[in-house]
């Protein structure tokens, strides 16, 4: 040991004292149980260490090679959004008592984390209109796949129906998951921008464990959950809704409209885009599924003196107790991001979240109207939240390249996922000013006509 690494405290003297105590002459002797035939010879072949100031420079340079959304206004959404995050959020989650702790296995010294998760669960229940929420999942997409697994297991049926209005990556993960679990996934086509209900009805049968709908869907359109629930109910299938939690500030809660499970991602509320992760899946269910929900749940209880306290609860569902019989293999979750999201929801509060959601509605609506006035076709027939799809006279990829040259990050190209390379999904959040929107429309017009 050289004592040149700032995270390693042992001095030569420390090391000597420990080795003497162990009656060994070198640290190497402590590795004598690793057969020489499998030893690494000559050290790992990776670049040498960088001193702190050098590394900071190098990594800053790497970061600067990316164009961030403060440099170029973005109209990309498709599941990850540029939203306002109050400064207070990062300050609070940067308290190292939170971020350097692990899962609260010892509740007496983890009351902060446990209470934070209890509050998070409450806020998720409030938004979704459900009875029970867990303390987070990896992301909205994996959360949806877990919901499908739970539906298949509890209904003992072997098919799930998923609308093509559900995020393409979500459907991809669902398919991977289904291969392991041995259930089949059938997609329900879209009627332009919303789930084709006639199709849905014809595909629903007594072997359907669940119907999965996104709300608002991938095209931004708001599906009529009440009607879909009726169809699912007729065949005894469960109703799983994947919802944008910000939209739920103004949309009727899926719980009230009959959802059995509601999943999604908290990213719109307090979590940076960060190139797609870490975000924070949520998972909420009605009471019936409380003892089957995957992941960690915090419950309220009392200590011997009757003081209120919080603990991890209903653990009999989980892998560390049930092993191969567990309802899920999830262990680590996204607790710190759940906390970020709670802090953001508390900062926005009951009124603020509605105002923010309203601005999303309005800005998307405004953008669509201006585009229409310039002759663009908006394909959405239904009302949409903060995203909508337009038809372009040329491939979206080309249009985006030109927009990039002009300093704008355009919308999501629907070519790969939906086979229509001339359609673009445009997201407009509260972060986009009218000025930016007008400029975007002006440039888009110039690009398609130029």
């Amino acid at each position, binding site marked *: 040991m050289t004592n040149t690494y700032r995270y390693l*405290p042992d001095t030569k003297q420390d090391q000597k004292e420990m080795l003497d105590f162990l009656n060994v002459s070198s640290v190497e002797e402590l590795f004598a149980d690793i*057969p020489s035939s499998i030893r690494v010879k000559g050290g790992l072949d990776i670049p040498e260490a960088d001193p702190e100031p050098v590394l900071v420079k190098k990594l800053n340079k790497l970061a600067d090679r990316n164009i961030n959304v403060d440099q170029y206004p973005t109209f990309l959404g498709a599941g990850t959004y540029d939203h306002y995050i109050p400064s207070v959020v990062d300050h609070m989650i940067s308290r190292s*008592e939170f971020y350097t702790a692990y899962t609260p296995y010892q509740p007496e010294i983890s009351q*902060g984390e446990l209470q934070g998760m209890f509050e998070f669960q409450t806020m998720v229940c409030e938004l979704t209109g459900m009875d029970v929420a867990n303390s987070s999942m990896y992301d909205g997409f994996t959360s949806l796949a877990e919901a499908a697994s739970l539906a298949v297991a509890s209904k003992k049926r072997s098919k799930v129906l998923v609308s093509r209005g559900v995020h393409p990556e979500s459907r991809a993960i669902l398919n991977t998951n289904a291969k392991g679990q041995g259930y089949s996934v059938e997609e329900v086509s879209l009627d332009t921008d919303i789930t084709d209900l006639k199709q849905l009805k014809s595909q629903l049968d007594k072997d359907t464990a669940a119907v999965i709908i996104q709300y608002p869907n991938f095209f931004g359109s708001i599906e009529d959950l009440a009607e879909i629930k009726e169809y699912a109910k007729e065949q005894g299938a469960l109703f799983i809704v994947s919802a944008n939690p910000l939209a739920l500030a103004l949309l009727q809660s899926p719980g009230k409209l009959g959802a059995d499970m509601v999943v999604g991602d908290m990213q719109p509320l307090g979590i940076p885009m960060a190139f797609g992760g870490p975000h924070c899946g949520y998972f909420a269910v009605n009471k019936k599924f409380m003892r089957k929900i995957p992941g960690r749940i915090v419950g309220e*209880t009392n200590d011997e003196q009757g003081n209120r306290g919080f603990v991890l609860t209903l653990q009999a569902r989980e892998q560390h107790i049930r092993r191969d019989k567990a309802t899920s293999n999830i262990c*680590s979750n996204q607790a710190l991001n759940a906390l970020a999201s709670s802090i953001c929801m508390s900062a926005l509060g009951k009124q603020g979240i509605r105002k923010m959601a309203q*601005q999303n509605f309005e800005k998307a609506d405004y953008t669509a109207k201006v585009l229409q006035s310039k002759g663009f076709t908006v394909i959405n027939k239904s009302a949409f939240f903060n995203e909508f799809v337009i038809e372009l006279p040329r491939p979206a990829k080309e249009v985006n390249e030109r927009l990039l040259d002009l300093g704008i990050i355009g919308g999501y190209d629907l070519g790969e996922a939906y086979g229509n390379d001339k359609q673009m999904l445009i997201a407009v959040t509260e972060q986009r000013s009218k000025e930016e929107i007008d400029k975007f429309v002006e440039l888009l017009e110039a690009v398609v006509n130029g």
Partner: protein
Amino acid sequence: MVEYNDLIFEISRPGRVGYSLPKSDVESVDLQEKLPKHLIRDEEEAADLPEVSELQLVRHYTALSNKNHGIDNGFYPLGSCTMKYNPKINEDIARLPGFSRIHPYQQAETTQGAFELLYNLQEELAVITGMDAISLQPSAGAQGEWTGLMMVRAYHEQKGESRNKVLVPDSAHGTNPASASVAGFDTATIPSDENGLVDLEELKKHVDSDTAALMLTNPNTLGLFETEIEEIAKVVHDAGGLLYYDGANANAILGKTTPGAMGFDIVHLNLHKTFTTPHGGGGPGAGPVGVKEDLIPYLPVPRIEKDGESYVLNSDYPLSIGRVKGYHGNFGILVRAYTYIRTMGAEGLSEVSEGAVLHANYLRKRLEEHFESPYKQLCKHEFVLSGSRQKKLGVRTLDMAKRLLDFGYHPPTIYFPLNVEEGLMIEPTETESKETMDAFADAMIQIAKEVEENPGIVLEAPHTTVVGRLDEVQAARKPIVRYTKEKDAQKKKDTVKA
């Protein structure tokens, strides 16, 4: 300090705000004109989120943080979790706007820096694990396990074989059998021998043409190196099975050996353990998987590749198991791990494992006289003691763990692995100083003495925490998993009556 026990909902008052948004600069829209009534959430049905000022919010979460123990607060020898120091520079780098304020679907030419980082991380993790290719997609160890097992399934299927059994040792973490189950396999448990290692004879009995894979950590969950690993690998491979390496304990072997050299075909790493990314109170973590050449076709897509001078995403792998996680995995965590690897380099990483192993052996020897130590050979980065001696005196491991709280320490992992009676699994990590370990050992020894002389103080512990032992049975029997206003009002009424 003023005692503070309120929930954020209990300090809420209608009309307070903790945010600031610009006024809308576009025409207002009336939802009633856009949507059917039953899809609109009106004021009365609004989600009841708290209404607080910014300072109230700050005080609330600061008060909560004060009720939490993290690594920065003190020693955290939670075995198997590798609670080592989480470097501050990692946090700074992950928050650079060029990393935190980029969208996953931006055109690839606008995120070449991010892709370069991911590509380099893949390359370096491949060297560290002795694997041929890495996918950074999985979000955590358990998801890495499942990803690996889905590849095992695809590999056998492609060969036209149906193999349904995954073998796990009795000391394995619960996620191993759970992941196998989620991937559609049956599991069989291999008992450990008297030295705490895989019983080779038992293994031979279980391995057959139905064996898809053996899952193993090495060093194993007891902190012991499986010295017969080459023979184990041969037994499994000869029967046509694959070897899966659970990287939970990789902190012991950096630069010393690799899973690849040991004969493993698939590996996952927990970046939040070995590679210093913070545990975050339960996550987010990251669980990259690595594979040997034969399994490369099955890796999740898209894969990050280098095409000339630029980095690209490639999904053109028809045998791939598909996607396992959204976007590019937990990018922010991957940035932190990369920053750490670049801080340490090859030599530094090797010293990490040397420190981890020296510390564990030192601490074990300091405690050995006072607690039952079931395994005598060298340990690696962690060790397991048994509280069986103290149990005979009427004090359980749980009680001793609670007593440790009074000394300001996070207790070790307890009652795990399952094959040690009253287990205490201790992992000091390389980032703790000798003084810290000595002070911890002194506290443990004092507790052992208390068990003999004054057991009451241990049985009633903790004495210094903000709450005492909590009633977990009540929590599970009558679950209260969210706050409700009605209940709060009722409670206040009851208090007034009382």
